[in-house]
């Protein structure tokens, strides 16, 4: 990632416009062509710096009102298999192994599911449990969102800022 790549990401990370030529202002500011802007974004995507270029959706406004985190307690020698299997479900957006706190907290695998409602949550979690044999879990449904934003951001670009 060079300085121009960083500038492009910094200038587009909060959203491109809905206009005929949404990359035009970035191109002008960096004195390169629009083709170069999109070409660099494509390259950053292929290189894995950009996971994908696309729309950030607000699930609550798109009919998916119930966000459930499920904490599972699974045998350490099965966590790789179960984690991989759960990750394959299209309903699961996040799947992580996390450290436990011996004597206080035994859950070592975490999934996030975005569902229509509580009933849908129970149905989908039940299906994951049956499919993987993970039977010891705790469902944590969100009842209020205080903050939700991407975790990766370019905080400052060298060069043309300030």
């Amino acid at each position, binding site marked *: 990632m060079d300085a121009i790549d960083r500038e492009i990401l910094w200038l587009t990370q909060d*959203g491109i416009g809905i206009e005929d*030529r949404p990359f035009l202002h970035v191109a002008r500011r960096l004195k390169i062509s629009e083709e170069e802007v*999109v070409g660099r974004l494509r390259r950053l995507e292929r290189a894995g710096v950009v996971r994908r270029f696309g729309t950030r*959706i607000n699930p609550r406004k798109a009919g998916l009102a119930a966000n459930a985190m499920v904490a599972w307690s699974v045998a350490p020698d099965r966590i790789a298999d179960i984690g991989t299997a759960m990750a394959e479900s*299209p309903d699961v957006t996040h*799947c992580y192994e996390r450290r436990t706190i011996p004597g206080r907290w035994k859950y070592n695998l975490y999934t996030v599911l975005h569902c229509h409602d509580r009933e849908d949550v129970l149905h989908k979690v039940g299906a994951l449990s049956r499919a993987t044999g993970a039977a010891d879990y705790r469902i944590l449904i969100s009842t209020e969102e205080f*903050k*939700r*934003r991407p975790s*990766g951001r370019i905080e400052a670009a060298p060069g043309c800022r300030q």
Partner: protein
Amino acid sequence: MHLDPRDRALLQQVQDAFPLDPRPYRVLGGMLGMPEREVMERLADLSRRGVIKHIAPILEPRSVGIRSSTLVAMRVPEERMHEVAAVINEYDSVSHNYRRDDDYNLWFTVAEASDEALFETLDEIRRRSMIPPGEILNLPVVQRFKLDVRFRFLPEEEDDGRDR
């Protein structure tokens, strides 16, 4: 929130495979058999209604220097919930913060460049929130199996063959 079939088809496409082209809305129109004008009007409307937050590159956290991240759960007295949540939200390194219906009722994620920076941020949050250590769970990531926040907008039977 009503989404008609054309909205759904458009949402699925802009979420899964936004065309990186100088005229992306024209290309999307070509893919979906919609005039460019309609693509832009529908996207503007979905954006006004809050369904779409924005169209942007979604960065891989590791590629922007994030090396250490954790999930924290707290038991917060009900009357202090909004105050504590507001303190936590102040930190740029906090990406998600939710009330959840459990004994541990506040859950947030923090990501920093190093273990040391993460430790310092958590320590400061602990002090400022005045939640005792025995009421806090710190659950650092051991390994990531999946991070892919995409949704299905089309009924499954019309959605086959899609690489996901």
